[in-house]
């Protein structure tokens, strides 16, 4: 999957990803229309299907609102690459099927507007703009099992049967 980079700094919190004034809805499309609004007013206008968010430390800190990864996913973003993620955001993303990758070298070497080719099965991130290649930290085996089951809901479906 090839996409264009939208780059952010450290500590992007869930209040700027989706401000609480829009939490009176659970509709993914409506949430997406306000995604990142308080940190980048034009984000929802500029983002295209398949684009990639790249950020520094502690992405998704703050509230547990699942509306945050839902808004990002519904806005067309294919995956988020960061140095590390806040833990509730990490769990929520895996659970709803928003791919997230941890890779410090990639974050350092990628700039706003770069084009990336990301292979989620191998974790290989190719920067087509600079020609550099990176490899993301692999997921723990239990998380891979969850992903292979198609997310937490499908995993649980097997348990309640």
């Amino acid at each position, binding site marked *: 999957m090839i996409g264009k980079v939208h780059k952010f700094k450290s500590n992007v919190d869930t*209040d700027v990803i989706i401000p609480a004034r829009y939490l*009176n809805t659970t509709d993914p499309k409506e949430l997406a229309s306000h995604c990142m609004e308080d940190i980048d007013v034009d984000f929802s206008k500029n983002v295209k299907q398949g684009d990639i968010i790249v950020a520094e430390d502690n992405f998704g800190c703050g509230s547990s609102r*699942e509306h945050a990864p839902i808004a990002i996913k519904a806005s067309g973003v294919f995956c988020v690459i960061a140095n590390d993620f806040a833990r509730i955001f990490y769990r929520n993303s895996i659970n709803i099927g928003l791919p997230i990758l941890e890779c410090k070298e990639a974050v350092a070497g990628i700039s706003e507007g770069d084009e990336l080719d990301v292979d989620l099965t191998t974790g290989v991130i190719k920067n087509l703009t600079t020609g550099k290649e990176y490899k993301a930290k692999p997921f723990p085996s239990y998380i891979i099992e969850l992903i292979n089951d198609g997310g937490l809901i499908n995993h649980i479906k097997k348990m309640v049967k």
Partner: protein
Amino acid sequence: MGMTITEKILAKHAGVDFVEPGEIVKANLDLVLGNDITAPIAIKVFEETGASDVFDKDRIAIVPDHSVPNKDIKSAELVNICRKFAKKYNITNFFELSKMGIEHTLLPDEGLVGPGDCVIGADSHTCTYGALGAFSTGVGSTDLGCAMAVGNTWFKIPEQIKFVYYGKLNKWVSGKDLILYTIGKIGVDGALYKSMEFTGEVIDVLDMAGRFTMCNMAIEAGGKNGIIAPDEKTMAFVNGRLKRSMEVLQSDKDAKYSQVVEINCSELEPQVSFPHLPENTKNVSEATGIEIQQAVIGSCTNGRIEDMRVAAEILKGRKVNPSVRCIVIPGTHDIHLQMTREGITEILLEAGACVSTPTCGPCLGGHMGVLAKGERAISTTNRNFVGRMGHTESEVYLASPAIAAASAVLGRIGSPEEL
């Protein structure tokens, strides 16, 4: 090798004798929690799992608190989704307005969480119950929806950081100041994925309200949970309230910590966290002179009766500055009633503060005190992110109830010593 209290609780709920950091376990849950913002998504997830019933109708709590009394039609619809679900599955712990409160103040007061419990909630401040010696942590709606179906969830055993608070607290220095100082010291990701265990002679003498405040803000340092070993103060709190049996656990002397942080509290002043991260902590003496237009006293962090008493002690016989809107929000309906019985409500109203019914409201810029462009608030809440209380060009300064009340009188950030 010994285990910490967090490891012991997770091991017990996973049905094993020993766990260590990095391991992933499936643990049984004593209570799962959702609110009016997170439960509607969780309810949809629950239905998608195909489960025919909830795992235990007595171990699910649904607390509409963020937008109540309903602030608009959409919010009213969300609360209705919660209400219908609670009725359909006969959920014991669904709280209507007449007995409601802010979830993390309400559930300990109602005796629904206790020492040794393993709890998840679809709200990041679920870590509050660590003050009772429970393992509790925030999750998202999908985790909650699945847990309502099966009564368990997966956890990675976190590394543990031990905080040792020693010395003697100065006047007006509270649990809020200790945790703001701690976050300032280690940063908003200083405890990322980790457990924060609060110990030391200062914690031993800290009241339960202060302990709840500290554990409540563990998430603001990225922590998975905050926890304090149960003692006689914990027992005094839970006795007569707790509706289940409990297990009082302590960390072993040879338990392993990835880091030990020692903090000398004798030198500590009341703290103020500057915009736009809780880690931007300074002494209150470095913050005087900053004018404010609003002071908020309440929230899951500082909405307990002890917090209300501090506000009343400072506002008694004084007047809120004419340029400040002072909004006081008791944590629960019962705390509101207690305030009225103790004469606190009258003191606050006479001072020119307004007293709201319990709600998360302004903490997340929802309602009951949203800020306009360029406005500044001092607040006893827990986050000061960009746009948190309203306009993206408004500012929130975090502090204790004593500092917020004193600032309301002064019209600028300041300490009760200046009154």
